[in-house]
Protein backbone atom coordinates (compact mmCIF):
# COMPACT_ATOMS: atom_id res chain seq x y z
CA UNK A 1 0.00 0.00 0.00
CA UNK A 2 1.39 3.38 -0.93
CA UNK A 3 0.65 6.06 1.57
CA UNK A 4 -0.01 9.55 0.35
CA UNK A 5 1.14 11.66 3.21
CA UNK A 6 0.36 15.11 1.95
CA UNK A 7 -2.45 16.56 3.99
CA UNK A 8 -5.51 17.85 2.20
CA UNK A 9 -5.49 21.30 0.71
CA UNK A 10 -9.17 21.96 0.68
CA UNK A 11 -9.63 24.84 3.00
CA UNK A 12 -9.44 25.15 6.73
CA UNK A 13 -12.11 23.34 8.71
CA UNK A 14 -11.46 25.62 11.67
CA UNK A 15 -12.67 28.66 9.79
CA UNK A 16 -15.87 26.93 8.82
CA UNK A 17 -16.58 25.04 12.03
CA UNK A 18 -18.14 28.03 13.70
CA UNK A 19 -20.37 28.53 10.69
CA UNK A 20 -21.43 24.90 10.78
CA UNK A 21 -22.18 24.99 14.46
CA UNK A 22 -24.25 28.15 14.34
CA UNK A 23 -25.94 27.80 11.01
CA UNK A 24 -26.11 24.39 9.51
CA UNK A 25 -24.81 21.60 11.76
CA UNK A 26 -28.38 20.46 12.31
CA UNK A 27 -29.03 20.66 8.59
CA UNK A 28 -26.10 18.39 7.75
CA UNK A 29 -27.27 15.87 10.38
CA UNK A 30 -30.88 16.10 9.15
CA UNK A 31 -29.80 15.58 5.54
CA UNK A 32 -27.70 12.54 6.35
CA UNK A 33 -30.25 11.01 8.72
CA UNK A 34 -33.00 11.44 6.11
CA UNK A 35 -30.80 9.88 3.45
CA UNK A 36 -30.04 6.94 5.75
CA UNK A 37 -33.73 6.52 6.56
CA UNK A 38 -34.78 6.38 2.92
CA UNK A 39 -31.81 4.74 1.22
CA UNK A 40 -31.58 1.98 3.84
CA UNK A 41 -35.11 0.94 2.86
CA UNK A 42 -36.45 1.36 6.41
CA UNK A 43 -38.58 4.36 5.49
CA UNK A 44 -39.79 2.76 2.26
CA UNK A 45 -40.92 -0.42 4.02
CA UNK A 46 -42.90 1.58 6.59
CA UNK A 47 -44.38 3.67 3.79
CA UNK A 48 -45.33 0.57 1.83
CA UNK A 49 -47.10 -0.96 4.84
CA UNK A 50 -48.83 2.35 5.45
CA UNK A 51 -50.10 2.50 1.86
CA UNK A 52 -51.44 -1.09 2.08
CA UNK A 53 -53.37 -0.21 5.23
CA UNK A 54 -54.70 2.98 3.70
CA UNK A 55 -55.71 1.15 0.52
CA UNK A 56 -57.69 -1.41 2.51
CA UNK A 57 -59.44 1.20 4.63
CA UNK A 58 -60.19 3.38 1.60
CA UNK A 59 -61.68 0.41 -0.23
CA UNK A 60 -63.89 -0.48 2.73
CA UNK A 61 -65.05 3.11 3.29
CA UNK A 62 -65.81 3.66 -0.40
CA UNK A 63 -67.78 0.40 -0.44
CA UNK A 64 -69.77 1.48 2.60
CA UNK A 65 -70.24 4.84 1.03
CA UNK A 66 -71.62 3.25 -2.14
CA UNK A 67 -74.05 1.22 -0.02
CA UNK A 68 -75.11 4.43 1.75
CA UNK A 69 -73.84 3.18 5.11
CA UNK A 70 -71.42 6.07 5.32
CA UNK A 71 -71.65 9.67 4.27
CA UNK A 72 -68.96 10.95 1.93
CA UNK A 73 -67.67 13.48 4.51
CA UNK A 74 -67.45 10.70 7.07
CA UNK A 75 -65.43 8.57 4.65
CA UNK A 76 -62.94 11.38 4.15
CA UNK A 77 -62.81 11.96 7.89
CA UNK A 78 -62.21 8.28 8.62
CA UNK A 79 -59.35 7.94 6.15
CA UNK A 80 -57.76 11.23 7.16
CA UNK A 81 -57.92 10.33 10.85
CA UNK A 82 -56.32 6.99 10.13
CA UNK A 83 -53.60 8.64 8.03
CA UNK A 84 -52.78 11.09 10.82
CA UNK A 85 -52.77 8.42 13.54
CA UNK A 86 -50.65 5.91 11.62
CA UNK A 87 -48.42 8.61 10.10
CA UNK A 88 -47.67 9.84 13.59
CA UNK A 89 -47.07 6.26 14.74
CA UNK A 90 -44.35 5.64 12.14
CA UNK A 91 -42.82 9.03 12.92
CA UNK A 92 -42.70 8.03 16.57
CA UNK A 93 -41.10 4.68 15.72
CA UNK A 94 -38.42 6.36 13.62
CA UNK A 95 -37.65 8.98 16.26
CA UNK A 96 -37.58 6.32 19.01
CA UNK A 97 -34.66 4.73 17.12
CA UNK A 98 -32.79 8.05 16.87
CA UNK A 99 -30.44 7.94 19.85
CA UNK A 100 -30.74 4.42 21.28
CA UNK A 101 -30.32 2.95 17.79
CA UNK A 102 -27.09 4.88 17.22
CA UNK A 103 -25.84 3.74 20.61
CA UNK A 104 -26.47 0.10 19.74
CA UNK A 105 -24.93 0.38 16.27
CA UNK A 106 -21.83 2.04 17.76
CA UNK A 107 -22.12 5.11 15.56
CA UNK A 108 -22.98 7.65 18.25
CA UNK A 109 -19.48 8.18 19.63
CA UNK A 110 -18.15 9.30 16.26
CA UNK A 111 -20.90 11.90 16.13
CA UNK A 112 -20.22 13.10 19.68
CA UNK A 113 -16.61 13.96 18.93
CA UNK A 114 -17.49 16.39 16.15
CA UNK A 115 -17.95 20.06 16.97
CA UNK A 116 -21.67 19.84 16.19
CA UNK A 117 -23.63 20.46 19.40
CA UNK A 118 -25.86 17.83 20.97
CA UNK A 119 -28.87 20.07 20.35
CA UNK A 120 -28.03 20.26 16.65
CA UNK A 121 -27.78 16.47 16.53
CA UNK A 122 -31.22 16.15 18.13
CA UNK A 123 -32.75 18.78 15.87
CA UNK A 124 -31.37 16.98 12.81
CA UNK A 125 -32.78 13.67 13.99
CA UNK A 126 -36.21 15.16 14.69
CA UNK A 127 -36.36 16.69 11.22
CA UNK A 128 -35.34 13.38 9.65
CA UNK A 129 -38.09 11.60 11.61
CA UNK A 130 -40.60 14.21 10.44
CA UNK A 131 -39.80 13.37 6.81
CA UNK A 132 -41.57 10.10 7.57
CA UNK A 133 -44.74 12.00 8.48
CA UNK A 134 -44.49 14.18 5.36
CA UNK A 135 -44.06 11.09 3.19
CA UNK A 136 -47.10 9.36 4.71
CA UNK A 137 -49.10 12.52 4.15
CA UNK A 138 -48.07 12.63 0.49
CA UNK A 139 -49.22 9.03 0.13
CA UNK A 140 -52.55 9.99 1.74
CA UNK A 141 -53.31 12.76 -0.79
CA UNK A 142 -54.61 10.56 -3.66
CA UNK A 143 -56.78 8.49 -1.29
CA UNK A 144 -58.41 11.61 0.13
CA UNK A 145 -58.78 12.96 -3.40
CA UNK A 146 -60.67 9.82 -4.48
CA UNK A 147 -63.02 9.94 -1.49
CA UNK A 148 -63.59 13.71 -1.42
CA UNK A 149 -64.59 14.15 -5.05
CA UNK A 150 -67.82 16.03 -5.45
CA UNK A 151 -68.29 17.44 -1.94
CA UNK A 152 -65.81 20.31 -2.18
CA UNK A 153 -63.79 19.50 0.92
CA UNK A 154 -60.60 18.20 -0.70
CA UNK A 155 -58.51 21.34 -0.09
CA UNK A 156 -59.86 21.81 3.40
CA UNK A 157 -59.31 18.16 4.32
CA UNK A 158 -55.73 18.14 3.05
CA UNK A 159 -54.83 21.44 4.72
CA UNK A 160 -56.42 20.27 7.93
CA UNK A 161 -54.70 16.90 7.89
CA UNK A 162 -51.33 18.48 7.14
CA UNK A 163 -51.50 21.16 9.83
CA UNK A 164 -52.94 19.03 12.62
CA UNK A 165 -50.83 16.00 11.71
CA UNK A 166 -47.62 18.05 11.63
CA UNK A 167 -48.42 19.51 15.05
CA UNK A 168 -49.00 16.07 16.57
CA UNK A 169 -45.99 14.58 14.74
CA UNK A 170 -43.67 17.28 16.16
CA UNK A 171 -44.93 16.61 19.69
CA UNK A 172 -44.80 12.83 19.53
CA UNK A 173 -41.57 12.81 17.52
CA UNK A 174 -40.00 14.84 20.34
CA UNK A 175 -41.38 12.41 22.90
CA UNK A 176 -39.93 9.53 20.85
CA UNK A 177 -36.48 11.12 20.96
CA UNK A 178 -36.80 11.77 24.70
CA UNK A 179 -37.67 8.11 25.25
CA UNK A 180 -34.81 7.06 22.97
CA UNK A 181 -32.37 9.16 24.97
CA UNK A 182 -33.23 7.60 28.31
CA UNK A 183 -33.74 3.97 27.25
CA UNK A 184 -30.99 1.41 27.68
CA UNK A 185 -31.85 -0.49 24.52
CA UNK A 186 -33.39 0.26 21.17
CA UNK A 187 -36.04 -2.42 21.58
CA UNK A 188 -37.16 -0.89 24.88
CA UNK A 189 -37.30 2.54 23.32
CA UNK A 190 -39.41 1.47 20.35
CA UNK A 191 -41.68 -0.73 22.46
CA UNK A 192 -42.26 2.06 25.00
CA UNK A 193 -43.05 4.52 22.22
CA UNK A 194 -45.56 2.23 20.52
CA UNK A 195 -47.15 1.44 23.88
CA UNK A 196 -47.51 5.16 24.56
CA UNK A 197 -49.13 5.73 21.19
CA UNK A 198 -51.57 2.87 21.66
CA UNK A 199 -52.61 4.28 25.02
CA UNK A 200 -53.19 7.66 23.42
CA UNK A 201 -54.99 6.17 20.43
CA UNK A 202 -57.26 3.83 22.43
CA UNK A 203 -59.90 6.42 23.51
CA UNK A 204 -60.56 7.32 19.87
CA UNK A 205 -61.65 3.75 19.22
CA UNK A 206 -64.33 3.59 21.91
CA UNK A 207 -67.82 2.90 20.50
CA UNK A 208 -69.77 6.11 20.00
CA UNK A 209 -72.79 4.60 21.79
CA UNK A 210 -71.02 4.67 25.17
CA UNK A 211 -72.13 7.34 27.65
CA UNK A 212 -69.86 10.36 27.20
CA UNK A 213 -69.94 12.60 30.25
CA UNK A 214 -67.57 15.28 31.53
CA UNK A 215 -64.93 12.66 32.41
CA UNK A 216 -64.82 11.42 28.85
CA UNK A 217 -64.56 15.02 27.64
CA UNK A 218 -61.59 15.68 29.96
CA UNK A 219 -59.95 12.45 28.82
CA UNK A 220 -60.49 13.42 25.21
CA UNK A 221 -59.11 16.92 25.60
CA UNK A 222 -56.10 15.80 27.66
CA UNK A 223 -55.09 13.36 24.95
CA UNK A 224 -53.12 15.01 22.13
CA UNK A 225 -54.09 12.41 19.51
CA UNK A 226 -57.74 12.05 20.50
CA UNK A 227 -58.26 15.82 20.68
CA UNK A 228 -56.48 16.37 17.34
CA UNK A 229 -58.68 13.76 15.68
CA UNK A 230 -61.76 15.29 17.32
CA UNK A 231 -60.80 18.64 15.80
CA UNK A 232 -60.51 17.07 12.34
CA UNK A 233 -63.87 15.37 12.82
CA UNK A 234 -65.59 18.55 13.97
CA UNK A 235 -64.52 20.32 10.81
CA UNK A 236 -65.03 17.60 8.24
CA UNK A 237 -68.17 15.92 9.56
CA UNK A 238 -69.91 18.64 11.52
CA UNK A 239 -68.82 21.40 9.15
CA UNK A 240 -67.40 23.66 11.86
CA UNK A 241 -65.03 26.48 10.90
CA UNK A 242 -61.26 26.45 11.60
CA UNK A 243 -61.66 28.71 14.61
CA UNK A 244 -64.76 27.12 16.12
CA UNK A 245 -63.18 24.23 18.04
CA UNK A 246 -59.64 25.50 18.42
CA UNK A 247 -59.67 24.45 22.06
CA UNK A 248 -59.19 20.89 20.81
CA UNK A 249 -55.73 21.90 19.61
CA UNK A 250 -54.54 23.17 22.99
CA UNK A 251 -53.25 19.75 24.09
CA UNK A 252 -51.46 18.91 20.80
CA UNK A 253 -49.90 22.38 20.85
CA UNK A 254 -48.86 22.09 24.50
CA UNK A 255 -47.45 18.61 23.82
CA UNK A 256 -45.34 19.95 20.95
CA UNK A 257 -44.13 22.92 23.01
CA UNK A 258 -43.42 20.97 26.20
CA UNK A 259 -41.84 17.93 24.52
CA UNK A 260 -39.89 20.11 22.09
CA UNK A 261 -38.77 22.37 24.95
CA UNK A 262 -37.71 19.37 27.04
CA UNK A 263 -35.75 18.12 24.07
CA UNK A 264 -33.95 21.44 23.71
CA UNK A 265 -33.25 21.74 27.43
CA UNK A 266 -32.34 18.11 28.09
CA UNK A 267 -30.66 17.52 24.72
CA UNK A 268 -27.06 17.72 25.93
CA UNK A 269 -27.83 15.22 28.70
CA UNK A 270 -29.72 12.85 26.42
CA UNK A 271 -27.23 12.47 23.59
CA UNK A 272 -24.57 10.47 25.37
CA UNK A 273 -23.00 7.07 25.17
CA UNK A 274 -24.76 5.47 28.10
CA UNK A 275 -28.10 6.54 29.53
CA UNK A 276 -27.98 7.22 33.23
CA UNK A 277 -24.35 8.31 33.27
CA UNK A 278 -23.35 11.92 33.59
CA UNK A 279 -21.45 12.06 30.35
CA UNK A 280 -22.06 15.69 29.61
Amino acid at each position, binding site marked *: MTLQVAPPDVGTPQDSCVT*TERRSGWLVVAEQESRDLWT*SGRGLILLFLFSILLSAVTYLTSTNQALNFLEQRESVNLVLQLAVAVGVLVTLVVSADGISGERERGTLESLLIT*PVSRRSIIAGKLIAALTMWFATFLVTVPYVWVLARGVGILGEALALGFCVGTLVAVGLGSIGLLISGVCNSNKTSIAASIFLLLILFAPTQLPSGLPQGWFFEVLLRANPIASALAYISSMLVEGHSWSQDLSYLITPLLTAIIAGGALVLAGPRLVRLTPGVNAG
Partner: protein
Amino acid sequence: MTLSHSGVYKDQAGPMTSMTVEAMRLTKHYGGRSAVEDVSFTASQGDIVGLLGPNGAGKTTTIRLLTTVLVPTSGEFSIAGHPSTSPNEIRRCVGVLPESSGYPAYQTGGEYLRFFARLYGLSRRNARSLAAELLATVGLADRAGSPISTYSRGMRQRLGIARALVNDPIVVFLDEPTLGLDPAGQAQVLDIIRTIAKSRAATVVLSTHLLPEVEDVCSKVVILHHGRVAVAGSVGEVISTALIEQSAELRVPLDMVERARNVLAGFPNLNVDQLAEQPDVLSLSVDGAGTGAGSSEVMNAALAAITAAGIPVLHFELEGARLSGAFFKMTSEAVA
Protein backbone atom coordinates in the same frame (compact mmCIF):
# COMPACT_ATOMS: atom_id res chain seq x y z
CA MET B 1 2.64 25.68 16.53
CA THR B 2 3.89 26.16 13.01
CA LEU B 3 4.10 22.74 11.44
CA SER B 4 0.74 22.93 9.78
CA HIS B 5 0.36 21.78 6.22
CA SER B 6 -2.77 23.73 5.60
CA GLY B 7 -2.69 26.37 8.27
CA VAL B 8 -5.26 24.53 10.31
CA TYR B 9 -2.99 23.77 13.24
CA LYS B 10 -1.93 27.35 13.55
CA ASP B 11 -5.56 28.39 13.72
CA GLN B 12 -6.72 25.58 15.94
CA ALA B 13 -4.02 25.52 18.56
CA GLY B 14 -4.57 27.38 21.76
CA PRO B 15 -1.89 29.19 23.75
CA MET B 16 0.71 26.44 23.73
CA THR B 17 4.15 25.44 22.65
CA SER B 18 4.80 21.84 21.63
CA MET B 19 2.83 20.21 24.44
CA THR B 20 -0.32 18.83 22.83
CA VAL B 21 -1.75 16.57 25.54
CA GLU B 22 -1.60 17.33 29.23
CA ALA B 23 -3.66 15.21 31.62
CA MET B 24 -3.54 16.11 35.30
CA ARG B 25 -4.99 13.76 37.91
CA LEU B 26 -7.92 12.74 35.73
CA THR B 27 -10.50 10.76 37.64
CA LYS B 28 -13.76 9.23 36.51
CA HIS B 29 -16.21 7.50 38.81
CA TYR B 30 -19.39 5.67 37.81
CA GLY B 31 -21.41 5.76 40.98
CA GLY B 32 -19.13 4.19 43.56
CA ARG B 33 -16.91 2.48 40.98
CA SER B 34 -13.71 4.10 39.87
CA ALA B 35 -12.89 3.69 36.17
CA VAL B 36 -9.90 6.01 36.11
CA GLU B 37 -8.03 7.43 39.12
CA ASP B 38 -5.46 10.24 39.14
CA VAL B 39 -4.24 9.65 35.59
CA SER B 40 -1.53 12.12 34.58
CA PHE B 41 0.70 12.18 31.53
CA THR B 42 1.84 14.51 28.80
CA ALA B 43 2.59 14.23 25.09
CA SER B 44 4.16 16.54 22.58
CA GLN B 45 3.81 17.22 18.91
CA GLY B 46 4.88 14.23 16.81
CA ASP B 47 4.81 11.83 19.76
CA ILE B 48 3.21 8.42 19.42
CA VAL B 49 2.00 7.52 22.89
CA GLY B 50 1.14 3.91 23.59
CA LEU B 51 -1.70 3.63 26.09
CA LEU B 52 -1.37 0.11 27.46
CA GLY B 53 -3.08 -1.97 30.07
CA PRO B 54 -5.11 -5.12 30.58
CA ASN B 55 -8.80 -5.14 29.67
CA GLY B 56 -10.70 -2.86 32.02
CA ALA B 57 -7.60 -0.88 32.97
CA GLY B 58 -9.18 2.42 31.94
CA LYS B 59 -7.68 3.00 28.47
CA THR B 60 -10.97 3.66 26.68
CA THR B 61 -12.29 5.80 29.54
CA THR B 62 -9.09 7.87 29.44
CA ILE B 63 -9.51 8.42 25.70
CA ARG B 64 -13.18 9.31 26.13
CA LEU B 65 -12.27 11.82 28.82
CA LEU B 66 -9.58 13.44 26.69
CA THR B 67 -11.91 13.65 23.70
CA THR B 68 -14.72 15.26 25.77
CA VAL B 69 -17.13 12.36 25.27
CA LEU B 70 -17.09 11.85 29.04
CA VAL B 71 -16.78 14.51 31.72
CA PRO B 72 -14.15 13.80 34.40
CA THR B 73 -15.29 13.49 37.99
CA SER B 74 -12.17 15.44 38.94
CA GLY B 75 -8.89 16.49 37.41
CA GLU B 76 -8.04 18.62 34.42
CA PHE B 77 -6.60 18.23 30.99
CA SER B 78 -5.72 20.29 27.97
CA ILE B 79 -5.49 19.39 24.31
CA ALA B 80 -3.45 21.60 22.02
CA GLY B 81 -3.56 24.27 24.68
CA HIS B 82 -7.34 24.20 25.03
CA PRO B 83 -8.46 23.47 28.59
CA SER B 84 -11.05 20.83 29.39
CA THR B 85 -13.53 23.62 30.02
CA SER B 86 -13.59 24.31 26.25
CA PRO B 87 -14.90 21.03 24.82
CA ASN B 88 -15.96 22.54 21.49
CA GLU B 89 -12.45 23.85 20.81
CA ILE B 90 -10.98 20.49 21.79
CA ARG B 91 -13.32 18.60 19.43
CA ARG B 92 -12.15 20.77 16.56
CA CYS B 93 -8.53 19.73 16.98
CA VAL B 94 -8.79 16.03 17.82
CA GLY B 95 -9.47 13.06 15.61
CA VAL B 96 -10.74 9.85 17.16
CA LEU B 97 -11.13 6.25 16.16
CA PRO B 98 -13.34 4.87 18.95
CA GLU B 99 -13.09 1.31 20.17
CA SER B 100 -15.45 -0.99 18.23
CA SER B 101 -16.66 1.91 16.17
CA GLY B 102 -19.82 1.18 14.18
CA TYR B 103 -20.40 2.22 10.60
CA PRO B 104 -23.65 2.84 8.73
CA ALA B 105 -23.89 -0.20 6.49
CA TYR B 106 -25.77 1.49 3.67
CA GLN B 107 -23.39 4.40 3.20
CA THR B 108 -20.39 4.19 0.92
CA GLY B 109 -16.94 5.03 2.24
CA GLY B 110 -17.01 8.27 0.26
CA GLU B 111 -20.42 9.31 1.62
CA TYR B 112 -19.32 8.53 5.14
CA LEU B 113 -16.25 10.76 4.98
CA ARG B 114 -18.13 13.53 3.14
CA PHE B 115 -20.72 13.59 5.93
CA PHE B 116 -18.07 14.05 8.61
CA ALA B 117 -16.18 16.61 6.55
CA ARG B 118 -19.38 18.64 6.26
CA LEU B 119 -19.92 18.38 10.02
CA TYR B 120 -16.57 20.14 10.33
CA GLY B 121 -17.85 22.92 8.09
CA LEU B 122 -16.49 22.04 4.67
CA SER B 123 -18.56 22.82 1.61
CA ARG B 124 -19.92 19.93 -0.45
CA ARG B 125 -17.22 20.38 -3.07
CA ASN B 126 -14.36 20.53 -0.56
CA ALA B 127 -15.82 17.64 1.41
CA ARG B 128 -15.87 15.58 -1.77
CA SER B 129 -12.22 16.24 -2.62
CA LEU B 130 -11.10 15.77 0.99
CA ALA B 131 -12.93 12.42 1.18
CA ALA B 132 -11.25 11.25 -2.03
CA GLU B 133 -7.87 12.33 -0.73
CA LEU B 134 -8.25 10.63 2.63
CA LEU B 135 -9.53 7.43 1.07
CA ALA B 136 -6.41 7.38 -1.09
CA THR B 137 -4.29 8.02 2.01
CA VAL B 138 -5.60 4.88 3.70
CA GLY B 139 -5.57 2.80 0.53
CA LEU B 140 -9.33 2.72 -0.08
CA ALA B 141 -9.56 4.90 -3.18
CA ASP B 142 -10.81 2.03 -5.32
CA ARG B 143 -13.58 1.22 -2.82
CA ALA B 144 -14.87 4.77 -2.35
CA GLY B 145 -18.19 3.94 -4.00
CA SER B 146 -18.76 0.60 -2.30
CA PRO B 147 -21.18 0.27 0.63
CA ILE B 148 -19.37 -0.02 3.95
CA SER B 149 -21.21 -3.29 4.56
CA THR B 150 -18.98 -4.85 1.90
CA TYR B 151 -15.74 -3.72 3.60
CA SER B 152 -13.53 -6.13 5.51
CA ARG B 153 -12.71 -5.36 9.13
CA GLY B 154 -9.31 -4.00 8.17
CA MET B 155 -10.88 -1.72 5.57
CA ARG B 156 -13.36 -0.43 8.12
CA GLN B 157 -10.56 0.33 10.55
CA ARG B 158 -8.70 2.23 7.85
CA LEU B 159 -11.90 4.09 6.99
CA GLY B 160 -12.24 4.98 10.67
CA ILE B 161 -8.70 6.32 10.70
CA ALA B 162 -9.48 8.38 7.59
CA ARG B 163 -12.50 9.81 9.39
CA ALA B 164 -10.29 10.68 12.35
CA LEU B 165 -8.14 12.75 9.97
CA VAL B 166 -11.03 14.68 8.41
CA ASN B 167 -10.29 17.84 10.42
CA ASP B 168 -6.50 17.58 10.04
CA PRO B 169 -6.24 17.09 13.82
CA ILE B 170 -3.44 18.07 16.16
CA VAL B 171 -4.01 15.00 18.32
CA VAL B 172 -5.29 11.68 17.00
CA PHE B 173 -6.71 9.12 19.43
CA LEU B 174 -6.86 5.56 18.14
CA ASP B 175 -8.56 3.07 20.43
CA GLU B 176 -7.43 -0.44 19.51
CA PRO B 177 -7.13 0.24 15.77
CA THR B 178 -5.58 -3.17 15.12
CA LEU B 179 -8.23 -5.16 16.98
CA GLY B 180 -9.23 -8.25 15.02
CA LEU B 181 -6.89 -7.56 12.10
CA ASP B 182 -4.60 -10.10 10.48
CA PRO B 183 -0.82 -9.43 10.56
CA ALA B 184 -0.90 -7.70 7.16
CA GLY B 185 -3.79 -5.50 8.28
CA GLN B 186 -1.98 -4.67 11.51
CA ALA B 187 1.13 -3.70 9.57
CA GLN B 188 -0.91 -1.44 7.28
CA VAL B 189 -2.54 0.32 10.20
CA LEU B 190 0.76 0.77 12.04
CA ASP B 191 2.27 2.15 8.85
CA ILE B 192 -0.53 4.71 8.65
CA ILE B 193 0.00 5.63 12.30
CA ARG B 194 3.69 6.29 11.71
CA THR B 195 2.74 8.45 8.73
CA ILE B 196 0.25 10.47 10.75
CA ALA B 197 2.84 11.28 13.40
CA LYS B 198 5.69 11.93 11.02
CA SER B 199 4.22 13.70 8.04
CA ARG B 200 1.26 15.42 9.66
CA ALA B 201 3.26 16.21 12.82
CA ALA B 202 0.28 15.11 14.86
CA THR B 203 0.39 13.52 18.29
CA VAL B 204 -1.00 10.00 18.22
CA VAL B 205 -2.39 8.38 21.36
CA LEU B 206 -2.63 4.70 20.60
CA SER B 207 -4.42 2.15 22.72
CA THR B 208 -3.44 -1.39 21.76
CA HIS B 209 -2.43 -4.80 23.01
CA LEU B 210 0.33 -5.28 20.42
CA LEU B 211 3.31 -4.84 22.71
CA PRO B 212 6.13 -5.56 20.23
CA GLU B 213 4.62 -3.10 17.79
CA VAL B 214 4.21 -0.47 20.49
CA GLU B 215 7.86 -0.90 21.36
CA ASP B 216 8.68 -0.35 17.72
CA VAL B 217 6.33 2.53 16.97
CA CYS B 218 5.76 4.48 20.17
CA SER B 219 8.00 7.18 21.55
CA LYS B 220 6.21 7.14 24.89
CA VAL B 221 4.29 4.55 26.84
CA VAL B 222 1.67 4.88 29.57
CA ILE B 223 0.76 1.62 31.30
CA LEU B 224 -2.57 1.72 33.12
CA HIS B 225 -3.55 -0.78 35.76
CA HIS B 226 -6.81 -0.72 37.73
CA GLY B 227 -7.46 2.78 36.38
CA ARG B 228 -4.16 4.22 37.59
CA VAL B 229 -0.92 4.98 35.80
CA ALA B 230 1.42 2.15 36.74
CA VAL B 231 4.31 3.66 34.84
CA ALA B 232 4.81 6.29 32.12
CA GLY B 233 7.77 7.43 30.06
CA SER B 234 9.83 6.38 27.09
CA VAL B 235 10.02 2.66 26.37
CA GLY B 236 13.51 2.57 27.91
CA GLU B 237 12.37 4.40 31.01
CA VAL B 238 9.40 2.09 31.45
CA ILE B 239 11.57 -1.00 31.18
CA SER B 240 14.07 0.49 33.59
CA THR B 241 11.36 1.51 36.06
CA ALA B 242 9.92 -1.97 35.96
CA LEU B 243 13.26 -3.28 37.31
CA ILE B 244 13.03 -6.39 35.21
CA GLU B 245 15.63 -8.99 36.04
CA GLN B 246 17.92 -9.28 33.08
CA SER B 247 19.69 -12.31 31.80
CA ALA B 248 21.76 -12.86 28.69
CA GLU B 249 23.00 -15.58 26.42
CA LEU B 250 26.60 -15.36 25.25
CA ARG B 251 27.92 -17.59 22.46
CA VAL B 252 31.68 -17.90 21.96
CA PRO B 253 33.80 -20.41 20.03
CA LEU B 254 33.66 -23.79 21.78
CA ASP B 255 37.42 -23.90 22.42
CA MET B 256 37.25 -20.54 24.20
CA VAL B 257 34.35 -21.29 26.55
CA GLU B 258 36.65 -22.08 29.50
CA ARG B 259 38.64 -18.92 28.91
CA ALA B 260 35.43 -16.90 28.80
CA ARG B 261 34.27 -18.48 32.06
CA ASN B 262 37.56 -17.47 33.69
CA VAL B 263 37.15 -13.88 32.53
CA LEU B 264 33.55 -13.74 33.79
CA ALA B 265 34.58 -15.21 37.13
CA GLY B 266 35.98 -11.76 37.90
CA PHE B 267 32.41 -10.46 38.34
CA PRO B 268 31.24 -11.63 41.77
CA ASN B 269 27.53 -10.79 41.15
CA LEU B 270 27.39 -12.59 37.84
CA ASN B 271 26.18 -16.18 37.64
CA VAL B 272 27.54 -18.08 34.66
CA ASP B 273 26.11 -21.39 33.54
CA GLN B 274 27.01 -23.49 30.56
CA LEU B 275 24.03 -24.86 28.69
CA ALA B 276 24.16 -28.65 28.44
CA GLU B 277 22.42 -28.75 25.07
CA GLN B 278 24.52 -25.89 23.66
CA PRO B 279 28.02 -26.14 25.15
CA ASP B 280 29.21 -23.02 23.31
CA VAL B 281 26.52 -20.87 24.98
CA LEU B 282 26.91 -19.33 28.42
CA SER B 283 23.86 -18.21 30.32
CA LEU B 284 24.47 -15.05 32.36
CA SER B 285 22.34 -13.67 35.19
CA VAL B 286 22.89 -11.08 37.88
CA ASP B 287 22.45 -11.94 41.54
CA GLY B 288 19.49 -10.71 43.69
CA ALA B 289 19.89 -6.93 44.01
CA GLY B 290 21.51 -6.62 40.65
CA THR B 291 18.41 -5.85 38.67
CA GLY B 292 17.31 -3.05 36.37
CA ALA B 293 19.95 -0.41 35.73
CA GLY B 294 22.52 -2.18 37.96
CA SER B 295 21.99 -5.37 36.06
CA SER B 296 22.64 -3.61 32.75
CA GLU B 297 25.92 -2.18 34.05
CA VAL B 298 27.16 -5.62 35.09
CA MET B 299 26.17 -7.10 31.72
CA ASN B 300 27.90 -4.28 29.83
CA ALA B 301 31.06 -4.65 31.90
CA ALA B 302 31.10 -8.43 31.39
CA LEU B 303 30.69 -8.05 27.64
CA ALA B 304 33.48 -5.44 27.55
CA ALA B 305 35.77 -7.79 29.49
CA ILE B 306 35.14 -10.65 27.07
CA THR B 307 35.95 -8.54 24.02
CA ALA B 308 38.99 -7.00 25.79
CA ALA B 309 40.29 -10.55 26.39
CA GLY B 310 40.20 -11.12 22.62
CA ILE B 311 37.41 -13.68 22.77
CA PRO B 312 35.20 -13.41 19.68
CA VAL B 313 31.53 -12.86 20.58
CA LEU B 314 29.46 -14.94 18.16
CA HIS B 315 26.12 -14.00 19.68
CA PHE B 316 24.92 -11.94 22.64
CA GLU B 317 21.25 -11.59 23.47
CA LEU B 318 19.90 -9.67 26.41
CA GLU B 319 16.69 -11.14 27.70
CA GLY B 320 13.99 -9.58 29.83
CA ALA B 321 14.62 -6.00 28.70
CA ARG B 322 11.46 -5.84 26.62
CA LEU B 323 8.28 -3.81 26.98
CA SER B 324 6.27 -6.99 27.25
CA GLY B 325 8.29 -7.93 30.34
CA ALA B 326 7.65 -4.53 31.88
CA PHE B 327 3.96 -4.75 30.99
CA PHE B 328 3.51 -8.16 32.58
CA LYS B 329 5.44 -7.13 35.67
CA MET B 330 3.47 -3.91 36.14
CA THR B 331 0.14 -5.63 35.58
CA SER B 332 1.01 -8.97 37.17
CA GLU B 333 -2.12 -8.98 39.33
CA ALA B 334 -4.28 -8.95 36.24
CA VAL B 335 -2.25 -11.69 34.61
CA ALA B 336 -2.42 -13.87 37.71
